[in-house]
């Protein structure tokens, strides 16, 4: 991890000095454990702020929307896929970007770590690649990173960037995942009432803070439907109907576009598993259209194309 940090700094410095990038977007070490802070660097002297470890779970593609300058950006597998999606949706141009690819071994699930140390206060976490060490006031424990991956990382099949201008290291081997949608299948098997109950419980603690939606690079509309006031689409209270409307609509807006980067779930202050919505749609996109978002610059996503030879006759 530390070697990546060094390489990111060197690369950012070179890009800024050579003028290949006017700004560089990466992460800075956070002020609290298990948390890093997205940062924009424009002065080559500032590159020492850049940092990389297994807590870079926020999707940096968020910060590209609408920018007009030349941007250097670090990207692992899912972030690069979101960037691809951004490009084909015209949110940023390919020729503006210098993508510094990182083969990713997954991000640590901060909630799993807190559970493992039984919610004792965590003062420091040191990432040593395969293992990480957690320190508190009167304890120190070492864990295997493999057992603490974010749920989306545990089923990831695109650890290596899809699109990049240079790589920081050799790509790592991708493994096939047996039954990646086991969780979704379990829900699919439920009857309508149990399903409704399941999703109602899933979002019951939601605050409507919109961290999930705003952490998502796909949510870039200038005015989100939840903020529309003329007319107003959805109520502003925490009435369960409005909260469910928000979650369902948000999920559907991500259909065929979500790269399962996990940013939404990572940021929720209430620990809500809203990925259960988007994962079903990801599975459908795969089953019905053989589509995984963010893999191709030259193909349109299934929900924004019309083809006269569509295999469904209802739409032809």
């Amino acid at each position, binding site marked *: 991890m530390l070697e990546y940090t060094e390489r990111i700094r060197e690369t950012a410095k070179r890009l800024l000095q050579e003028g290949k990038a006017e700004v560089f977007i990466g992460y800075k070490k956070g002020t609290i454990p298990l948390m890093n802070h997205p940062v924009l660097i424009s002065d080559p002297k500032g590159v020492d702020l850049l940092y990389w470890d297994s807590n870079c779970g926020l999707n940096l593609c968020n910060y590209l929307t609408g920018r007009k300058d030349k941007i250097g950006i670090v990207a692992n597998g899912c972030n690069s896929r979101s960037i691809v999606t951004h490009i084909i949706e015209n949110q940023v141009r390919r020729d503006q970007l210098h993508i510094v690819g990182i083969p990713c071994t997954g991000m640590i699930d901060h909630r799993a770590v807190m559970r493992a140390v039984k919610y004792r206060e965590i003062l420091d976490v040191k990432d040593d690649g395969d293992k990480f060490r957690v320190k508190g006031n009167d304890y120190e424990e070492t864990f295997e990173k493999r057992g603490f991956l974010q749920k989306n990382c545990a089923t990831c099949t695109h650890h290596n960037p899809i699109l990049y201008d240079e790589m920081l290291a050799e790509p790592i081997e991708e493994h096939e995942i047996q039954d990646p949608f086991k969780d979704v299948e379990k829900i699919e098997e439920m009857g309508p009432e149990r399903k409704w109950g399941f999703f109602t419980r899933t979002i019951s603690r939601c605050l409507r803070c919109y961290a999930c939606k*705003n952490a998502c690079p796909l949510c870039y509309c200038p005015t989100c439907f939840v903020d529309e006031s003329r007319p107003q689409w959805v109520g502003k209270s925490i009435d369960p109907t409005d909260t469910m409307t928000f979650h369902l609509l948000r999920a559907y807006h991500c259909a065929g576009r979500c790269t399962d980067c996990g940013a939404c779930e990572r940021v929720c202050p209430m620990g809500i598993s809203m990925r259960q919505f988007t994962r079903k749609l990801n599975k459908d996109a795969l089953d019905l259209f053989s589509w995984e978002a963010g893999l191709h610059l030259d193909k349109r996503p299934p929900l924004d194309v019309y083809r006269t030879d569509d295999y469904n006759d209802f739409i032809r």
Partner: protein
Amino acid sequence: MIHKVFTKKEWIRTLEALSDTYKVFVPVKDGNFHTFDILEEGKRPDFDYQNTRLSPKSLVYPQSERMFEYSLDENEPDVNILKVSPKDYSPRAIVGIRPCDAHAFQLVKVNFDNPLYRDPWWVQCFESTTLVGLGCKAPCSTCFCTSVGGGPFSETGLDVLLFDLGDSFLTKALTEKGEKLLEHARGGEDASESLVKDAEQSAEPTSDKISSTVPIDKLKERVVTELFDAPFWKEVAFACINCGACTYICPTCWCFDIQDEVFGKEGDRIRNWDTCMSPLFTFHSSGHNPREDKFQRVRQRFMHKLKYYPDKYNGTVQCSGCGRCVRYCPVNIDIRQVCEMMNNY
């Protein structure tokens, strides 16, 4: 002043009995974190906790609160007349509230209860509430209450303070309201003077356990327009995703939005927490938005808490140092750092 000791087991029974006279709210474990909930059958209070995920502000100031009801039915005599929604303002107690969160109610009070305006809902609810605080023996690394006028055993804003003595709780009444609650609290034994002294003495070094400090001494002398135009706001705001997490979890944020919701011929006027992080917060009906950019909204949050508020209210900041926003901001925008930047600007 009555001091009493209750064994921890007895304390729970006492609270259960107290439920006859008060609606008693206690910290309970809810999934992976703690929350304040009403004490009733099947609920187990858990005082062995650091702090609740959400602040207890919602007990006095709910996230969504019905203010008025009305009918749109032309056949009704009171068509279109707003009627205040009935509420239950019988006595309530929040037991186990942390000193920072009690302090926060005082910081919010200047907004809802002042010579110019008394918010009927907030005031009635707050006045019916007795705050029984639990001193912090093991503060979190993100707590900075001592920098902003509080402390792990601070009595500000509390009616009763509890000292955790290991197997028992020592109660110290601080106000009339607090004494009244303790009169209703059955059981316990009178505490000896030496026990009280010991408890108070052992509480003192806890302040040293607060590892986070934030300078606020120069905020008031700063020139407001200069701070407003400071060059660092865009940098501070870069990572912000403009969610409402920091303001909703904050015990001292008080902004709300009023909405009418109509179903059939019945309408409700509801107020909901609002957040200055949202573009809609300042969106004018003309279509103009004076805070169109993210950095303006981020600046508003910090300027309000750390500059406008101290300017208006004698130097204290609108922050109790609970550290929630530090822990739960999804992108690690840390108020402690921003405060330092503003103070030293």
